[in-house]
């Protein structure tokens, strides 16, 4: 049985907002995998050089206000790690809130409900980003 063609080339689909968000969701997945891989390899390399515990490096990266910084003597590495965690949190947030909106849009069909959910999710994104960035960059 012949298989029906499931996709159109990008040139025929056009770049609408929906198309952009479809691509955004897929590419943020790849970005998360890339950041996780780079983070794990980086943590392994640093722990091999400094003797710092591999678990402590990752724990500090994600809970910087409760875990001592095992990279304190390597300022450039600390800044790089913070940049990577910042990128990871923002990518996760973008991917996550878009996914939640997709689900809500599927089950709540009135225009009013959708508008309110959109507003709430945007407000959530702003507050969550602000808290994350503040803690990541002000803790040592």
């Amino acid at each position, binding site marked *: 049985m012949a*298989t029906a063609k*499931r*996709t159109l080339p990008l040139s025929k689909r056009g770049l609408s907002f929906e198309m952009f968000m479809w691509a955004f969701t*897929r590419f943020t*997945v*790849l970005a*998360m*995998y890339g950041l996780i891989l780079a983070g794990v390899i980086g943590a392994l390399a640093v722990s091999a050089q400094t003797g710092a515990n591999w678990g402590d490096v990752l724990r500090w990266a*994600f*809970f910087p*206000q*409760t875990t001592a910084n095992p990279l304190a003597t390597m300022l450039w590495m600390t800044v790089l790690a913070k940049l990577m965690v910042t990128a990871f949190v923002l990518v*996760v*947030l973008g991917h*996550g*809130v878009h*996914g*939640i909106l997709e*689900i809500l*849009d599927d089950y*709540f*069909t*009135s*225009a009013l409900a*959708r508008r309110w959910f959109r507003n709430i999710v945007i407000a959530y994104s702003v507050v*969550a980003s602000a*808290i*994350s960035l503040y*803690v990541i960059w002000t803790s040592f």
Partner: protein
Amino acid sequence: MGQERNVNLFTALQYKGQGPMLTYILHRIAGVGLFIFFTTYILALAGVSAVNALYENWLFQIIVLFCVFFHAINGLRITILDLWPQWQPYQHRAVRIEWAVFWPLYVFSVVVVIWNAFGG
């Protein structure tokens, strides 16, 4: 405009979508679980110390591990099949490979969590 839904839950559960349908549902459930986890993470960053007790609960860890592993592995399958649509006819095989990757990882992680909680 939104679409009208005239399918009740019982009828929906009888839908024979098989493996890909199950992964579609589980992907959504795991995604919502991760969103809740992310919210607790933001609360922990904001200094709500009560959340730390939640993180040390083994049951919470097992649920989060399911959400993380399943959502990540299934998301990779979706992304690969979306970016290379010529592989779509093999989606049932891709789902079987996905489970074959997921279960060893998840069972190993659950054993480690339970070992640390009760034995270690």
